């Protein structure tokens, strides 16, 4: 995973995950569908028009096609802050090198240069050979258009939800159980709390087997250490998650 480091205006460093060639290619493929649909729409409209005025229909067709070819990506990346329908579906976004949203001029630049990036093809749409080669050869996978416009494509994560919440407690028994848990967890030292939380926060990054094994082990350890019991039909993972939730829950 390649990350692009950025310093905020407040001098706090953070980073974006650079989008790989695969996701960008896929986003482009998805974008071809609306492009084709729009082109078809123009064709239909022009054909209808050309029944009455052939010249007007032709002119409209020429301008419509032109606008789609040069304008589709520009229009969306400008209006949707660096995203096209395809990019939005894959959760990637064009940003400035400094980490902020891209401007109109940058969107114009990087998309005009599709004409060169897509070169064997005679129209300014796709990533062709030059774009692919250049993008494959630099760390942030920037094609020529990105280099000139000072932009790059990154993932915008929205699914990260490592902070667990405690489910509603319905009955007295549950409430008592949690109270006990709270009390017992107080005995843990800092290291142990840390490990517990770390595991829960990171669980989505683990492979299924390792995840099950780790939670099993941790659950067993805490069972013995804190003299707790797994409830019937409660998975090890759920048990550990509950402990973590109790741990970070506001005591008030």
């Amino acid at each position: 995973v390649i990350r692009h480091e950025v310093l905020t205006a407040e001098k706090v460093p953070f980073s974006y995950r650079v989008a790989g060639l695969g996701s960008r290619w896929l986003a482009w493929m998805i974008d071809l569908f609306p492009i084709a649909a729009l082109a078809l729409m123009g064709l239909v409209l022009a054909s209808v028009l050309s029944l009455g005025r052939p010249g007007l229909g032709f002119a409209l067709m020429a301008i419509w096609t032109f606008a789609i070819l040069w304008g589709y990506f520009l229009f969306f990346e400008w209006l949707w802050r660096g995203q096209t329908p395809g990019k939005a579906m894959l959760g990637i976004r064009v940003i400035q090198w400094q980490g902020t949203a891209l401007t109109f001029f940058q969107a114009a630049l990087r998309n005009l240069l599709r004409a060169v990036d897509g070169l064997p093809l005679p129209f300014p749409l796709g990533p062709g050979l030059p774009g692919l080669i250049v993008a494959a050869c630099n760390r942030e996978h920037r094609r020529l258009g990105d280099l000139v416009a000072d932009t790059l494509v990154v993932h915008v994560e929205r699914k990260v939800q490592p902070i667990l919440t405690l489910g509603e407690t319905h009955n007295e028994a549950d409430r008592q159980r949690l109270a006990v848990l709270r009390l017992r967890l107080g005995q843990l030292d800092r290291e142990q709390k840390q490990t517990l939380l770390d595991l829960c926060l990171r669980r989505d990054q683990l492979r299924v087997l390792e995840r099950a094994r780790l939670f099993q082990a941790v659950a067993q350890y805490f069972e013995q250490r804190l003299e707790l019991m797994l409830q019937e039909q409660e998975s090890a993972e759920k048990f550990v998650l509950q402990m973590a939730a109790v741990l970070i829950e506001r005591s008030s």
Partner: protein
Amino acid sequence: MDLATFLQTRRPDWKRLEEILQRVEGSGLASLDDEQAVEFGRLYRRAASDLNQAQTFVSGEATELYLNDLVARAYLAIYGKTRIDVWGLMRYLLLGYPAVFRRYLPHFLLATLLFTAGGVFGYLVSWYDKDVARAYLLPPRTIRPTEEGSDGGVQYDTDQVTAFSGFLFTHNVSVTLFAFALGVTFGLGTAWMMFYNGVITGVLAAVFVEAHQLTAFATGILPHGVLEIPACLIGGTAGFVMAQGFLQARPWPRREEVARQGKQAILVLFGCVPLLAAAACLEAGVARAPDWFLDKGVKLAIAGVVGLLFLAYVALVGWRHKEQA
């Protein structure tokens, strides 16, 4: 601070920030009222400082990642204006552009030189061997002079004029944009485009001269050509400006220089938008108009006036206009 306490105390703020972010990403910063905007800013700064803290004091990669992504999202939402300032753009095109044009006059002259060289070359080639010139130098489907004596070509009806203008306009803009984009080939592609377009013009001129239809050529091409050719040259100019960023990397790293020149190049390029639009109108309205409607002399006069207007615009306007970055 240990992780548990950290999460315990800070979590409500992060949750709140996530909620606001959700809204902002959906309907923009404008959807927040004053109070919420202030809160958003506060929560963002707080999250940034939390991230800082997480990076330094708190172990736990996942928390750090979470905060990192939260800060990244907020940062994108807060910084960078994406709304285009239409008035600013208009003012730039009207007043600011000539100054930018003059700054890159050498690039423009280079483009003009190449275009002229191509024109002379094309003219000479077809002077010596017109068949070769027509077969190899002209793209298929260009206009040819009509039978001798018919004076000025076929009379098009308005519908055909519309069709032809539409095609010509998009074609010319595409050529201009391609010429610009090819600047990334260290300017070689742009240079070729300039030269080749000159060649086409030269050969065409020769073809018409030979058919003794120079006036038809002049009246058919000049009224819009006086704007279209400069527009194409400006596309080339912008391409050369961009190429300079690739070629001349000092004193900054190449990455920065390319980006800096790219920004200038797009500003140069945008100047041909009004030119091309005006050219399209002239093309439809003047050049293609039948001779009984607009006299040849009138057409040429219009061409002359428009050309002078363009020169006056780039030479005289905007000396006192303060350029905004």
